[in-house]
């Protein structure tokens, strides 16, 4: 069945379908029940599945995750919501020291089929702690799958896969894209491993995920006007990364730009570059580039447009990578070293 849905509604649909498909699935979080979540993602689910399966919890993130661990021990598959990116840190211990490790700690005996939903990312014009991209912390944590989605279809398919997965999954929902609309085929359930090539191109590989994908696709269109072909890779899984897909692409393009909204230092972009350099050093014809947030705390929203990767910053990095004129290198070799 295909239907036009916003990304937010696609996730809600996935959660409803997951609740319907498996009695062991339970949802818990702040304001997810009666209110349907501050973004209305879980709208209607408590009415449909009852307060025992769609649970408004007290206001305590460590407990939300920690009690979900206990439920998983009891055989449930909890899907918990952290209301905003910036509120996940009180649960950090339970996520990195418990959720991520229990399967390893018990040598495979205990499974933690938890899904931790986190609306994330900036550009919603809000106040502090409501616009962060903390995915790198979780990517650095062994034992967690970290995923995101860039379209309603991806959001649906990946959420179904996340809830079904026996691994713990941290699902970063690109909140700035919640209102993007697209066709959703509810028959499609994704895998959690592979990146997707969204646009083929010969000149530069641009790898990105989540809210940055649309920015990069727009940049690819703009570049096409100037005769530059960008190959756009939507990583989808932030950890583990599908390095093979990026290496394959870079082996053709010789150039790599990585785009995400998180700060650069010790980030997913750092990782992708280090991994690709390790495996495709000889294929690289230019230094890989990062287009990320700057290494400052998230600024007031009045400045976020400049803080976050933009179409122009992506194009600037592409130019740099091609040895064309760029603000940073100051080079002005039109056409570049292609």
């Amino acid at each position: 069945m295909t239907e036009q849905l916003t990304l937010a509604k696609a996730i809600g649909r996935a959660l409803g379908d997951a609740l319907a498909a498996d009695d062991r699935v339970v949802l818990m979080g702040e304001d997810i029940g009666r209110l349907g979540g501050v973004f209305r993602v879980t709208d209607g689910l408590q009415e449909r599945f009852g307060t025992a399966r769609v649970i408004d919890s007290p206001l305590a993130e460590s407990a939300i995750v920690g009690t979900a661990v206990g439920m998983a021990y009891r055989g449930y598959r909890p899907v918990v919501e952290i209301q905003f990116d910036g509120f996940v840190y009180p649960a950090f211990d339970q996520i990195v020291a418990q959720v991520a490790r229990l399967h390893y700690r018990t040598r495979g005996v205990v499974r933690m089929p938890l899904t931790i939903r986190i609306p994330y990312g900036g550009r919603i014009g809000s106040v502090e702690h409501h616009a962060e991209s903390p995915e790198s912390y979780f990517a650095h944590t062994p034992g967690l799958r970290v995923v995101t989605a860039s379209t309603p279809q991806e959001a649906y398919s990946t959420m179904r896969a996340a809830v079904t997965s026996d691994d713990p999954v941290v699902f970063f929902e690109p909140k700035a894209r919640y209102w993007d609309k697209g066709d959703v085929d509810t028959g499609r359930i994704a895998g959690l491993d592979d990146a997707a090539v969204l646009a083929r191109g010969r000149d530069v590989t641009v790898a990105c995920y989540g809210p940055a994908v649309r920015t990069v696709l727009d940049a690819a269109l703009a570049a096409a006007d100037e005769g530059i072909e960008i190959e756009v890779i939507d990583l989808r899984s932030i950890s583990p990364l599908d390095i093979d897909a990026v290496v394959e692409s870079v082996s053709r393009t010789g150039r790599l730009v990585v785009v995400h909204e998180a700060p650069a230092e010790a980030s997913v972009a750092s990782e992708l570059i280090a991994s690709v350099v390790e495996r495709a050093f000889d294929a690289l014809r230019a230094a890989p580039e990062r287009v990320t947030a700057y290494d400052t705390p998230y600024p007031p929203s009045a400045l976020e447009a400049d803080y976050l990767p933009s179409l122009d910053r992506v194009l600037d990095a592409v130019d740099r990578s091609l040895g064309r004129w760029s603000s940073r290198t100051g080079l002005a070799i039109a056409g570049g070293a292609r």
Partner: protein
Amino acid sequence: MSTAVSARAAEHSAGLDDPLVALDDSGTRCPSAVLDGHLADVDETMLTDLYVDMAIARRVDEEAFALTRQGELVLWPPSLGQEAAQVGSARALRGTDFVFSSYREHGVALMRGVGLDELLAVWRGTTQSGWDPYERGMATPQIIIGAQTLHAAGYAMGIRMDGGDDAAIAYFGDGATSEGDANEAMVFASAFRAPVVLFCQNNQYAISEPVSVQSRSPLAARAIGFGIPALRVDGNDVLAVLAATRIALQRARRGGGPTFVEAVTYRVGPHTTTDDPTRYRDDEEVAAWRGKDPLDRLLRHLGGAGAREDRVREEAQVRCDQVARELRTAVTAIPVPATDAMFDHVFTGPTRRLERQRAEHRAFSASIEGDR
């Protein structure tokens, strides 16, 4: 470890069954063995001042709410209905005390002398701190629920270290009591006998969740188990709040350690300007609480006490209109920071990494201005 400590905490607690009141719903002054000793100085001038302060707090809130609807602010968490809790408690403080609040304590901020532009700046999205905390004796808004309770406890531990008789006060909501931090703050405040007032505005809701989701027993009762005396007061009664906070502060200044004050009140408005409370609560409930309005109550009391109600109301009106005008000027005068400012103050001095990023950003900005 001794039962004596909890016994002492219980003994110094009050209002757990029925919140303490000084003014009942009709504005009648009710005698209170606990509170009255701390209200001896209350005269008509003070009552009028309290009324005007609350009226201004309300007006500022209304104006800011309207400004948000007009797109002048990015968000606003209204304090409507909580004026007595905020003004009453803040009026008990002195300048050298220090306040750690959440995001909803506009009334408190105004009492601390925070300017209108300073108050609105955060909500205009141009800064994350509207004022100088040291100038106002008040930290700027804390959005992480519960985090500031630890800051207040630590500040108070500092006061004890340097032997001052100042106090710290933490403002937090009913929802915040569930967070680990708020409970750890009680552990530390109690263990170190820190001169801190843990001031909980129980406004019945954490966004959509009624307080019954957080706790099946009164929040104030929680404190006693930590060895902290608790006062539970009618949070819409400005005199009760004033007195309870004074009691707590006095204990703090005299080395008696922390006190938990629960002000039982109501968030009459939505959680923030993006919230739709009709999804989770009835009009009747809201109407019932509107009937307990803190301003009306004090006004009735003033009337009953012989003051000219209409004179007070008029005085307040004049001041409020004045403030409203100032506010509308203030909001548009809030400076928009230069983009480059986003690289400032990450550290106390420059680092090579950030100066590099700043330079790149400048070059990039310059390039697109000329270029595309």
